[in-house]
């Protein structure tokens, strides 16, 4: 899991540090930097999967520099726990004036007792698992050289880090964008969930039909029976939800479900299909489309999934149900100081009178 995130010169995140556990809530006012934290994590996931270059819009584009500081370098650091071992990743990026180009001027991966990878001045120095020096070679400046290192018998620690980062799943669901049709399977759920049909098709192939998944949806969505992929071409399928029972059955296309129902399909899918996959879930306002009464059951299910092997769930939320359930011991409050810089502190440090719930303190702005 990711235990520490450090960011400097990314939007409102200046010399910003966040320490994480396996289940956390990020809370704070609008514009306090919560989603920016998730954007950094998502960008690193793309960079370290080799899907994106460093100045791509989704990673560290020129426009993402902190506006008022006018510095041209950005730094991101991650501390992770991989198989019980702490690993530290550092990325330093320099933008050319006007944003014409960006280049990685430093990329490092280390364990506490030594380096595993170092990229500086255009050269990569690899280290073996026993920390002895390995090959040295030149690499591109605008993409992660670490992501290009192929797995070998003597770099299993480095490979484990890359695998961890490739298992990061950042989501900000937009159910209105979901589409019925799936031309082919997709191994990854897109950030807004629009390709849910294709991802579900992949899950069916990988895991088969899940009784638990169907049961939890039946308990949650009135009249729901099951999901079904209907053939609409040689390869194409369309996802429909079956409702009712026996002769009374009827079907609705995915796009005919409500936004909340679509969100529930994804949110429970993430927990039921990914709990054994080692995924790290970073979810931006997953409660957005849910009925208030459905939020705590999902949180309880998430907590159980963590016990069953899901390594990490980090939630951004403003919802009282989430704040009251997670805020006391897992809540981190992000706040913008007068300088515009974001700082964090434990949410429970806001001062909670015995007569009030934590969400009431936040809702009323009565934080100390």
């Amino acid at each position, binding site marked *: 899991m990711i235990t520490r995130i450090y960011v400097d010169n990314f939007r409102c995140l200046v010399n910003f540090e966040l320490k994480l556990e396996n289940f956390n809530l990020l809370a704070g006012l609008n514009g306090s930097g919560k989603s920016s934290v998730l954007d950094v994590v998502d960008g690193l996931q793309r960079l370290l999967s080799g899907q994106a270059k460093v100045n791509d819009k989704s990673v560290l584009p020129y426009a993402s520099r902190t506006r008022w500081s006018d510095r041209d370098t950005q730094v991101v650091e991650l501390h992770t726990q991989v198989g019980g071992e702490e690993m530290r990743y550092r990325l330093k990026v320099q933008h050319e004036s006007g944003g014409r180009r960006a280049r990685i001027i430093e990329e490092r991966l280390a364990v506490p007792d030594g380096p595993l990878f170092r990229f500086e001045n255009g050269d990569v120095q690899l280290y073996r698992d026993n920390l002895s020096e390995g090959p040295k070679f030149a690499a591109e400046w605008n993409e992660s050289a670490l992501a290009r290192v192929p797995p070998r018998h003597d770099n299993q620690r480095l490979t484990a880090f890359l695998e961890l980062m490739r298992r990061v799943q950042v989501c900000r669901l937009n159910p209105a964008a979901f589409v019925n049709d799936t031309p082919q399977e997709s191994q990854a759920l897109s950030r807004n969930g629009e390709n849910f049909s294709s991802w579900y098709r992949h899950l069916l192939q990988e895991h088969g039909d899940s009784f638990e998944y169907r049961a939890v949806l039946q308990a949650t969505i009135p009249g729901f029976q099951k999901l079904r992929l209907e053939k609409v071409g040689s390869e194409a399928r369309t996802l429909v939800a079956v409702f009712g029972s026996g002769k009374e059955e009827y079907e609705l296309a995915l796009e005919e479900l409500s936004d909340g129902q679509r969100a529930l399909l994804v949110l429970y899918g993430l927990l039921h299909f990914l709990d054994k996959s080692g995924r790290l879930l970073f979810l931006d306002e997953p409660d957005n489309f849910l009925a208030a009464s459905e939020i705590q*059951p999902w949180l*309880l299910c998430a907590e159980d999934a963590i016990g069953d092997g899901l390594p990490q769930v980090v939630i951004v939320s403003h919802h009282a149900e989430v704040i009251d359930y997670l805020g*006391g*011991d897992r809540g981190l409050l992000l706040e913008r100081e007068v300088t515009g810089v974001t700082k964090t502190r434990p949410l429970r440090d806001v001062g*909670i009178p015995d007569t009030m719930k934590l969400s009431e303190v936040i809702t009323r702005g009565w934080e100390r």
Partner: protein
Amino acid sequence: MSRRRVQVVVLYEDRQHATFVRRFLIQNGWENRQIVVVMNPHGRDGRGSGEQWVREQYAQEVRKLRSAPHVAKALIAVIDEDKQGVGRRDVQLSKALEVANSPARKPTEAILHIIPARNIETWLEYLKGNAVDEQETYSKFDKGLDCRPMVNTLKDMCDARKLREPAPPSLERACVEYRTRMAPILENR
């Protein structure tokens, strides 16, 4: 039935309590969707008085429970005895009702006081198979969810209607609370 109707309210002092009690309820036939947890934001290690917050919320939750008898079935308050004398927390909870001008709980009313002594870790140590002393402090679990095998052990003991001797007296009292106030609800469902 997919509309969520909460039947059991559980008021906790700490997430370890939450995990333990919720797991026990699920083992005994309740579902997540029938349970709502009210979490003490201070925790046991937090700033401020966690047990005082629980007592304050307890009186409110008793009123809420009694106002919705068509749905709400039970309230479970979980709070460590800590260094208080035996029965002190129980008295404090009852006093909280008195202060709030709420009637005292009736002998079989489904309002449970679950009060581990010295704290929940004492029970977990016992359920691991070790001898325990309620005056001692036992170490906390790194991960709260690691208590699940111990809940299974407790469930087995409950089904056999016998705790392993010698059992912590606070756990024996909790079993009596569950048997007299909660078990009848399940039997009548």
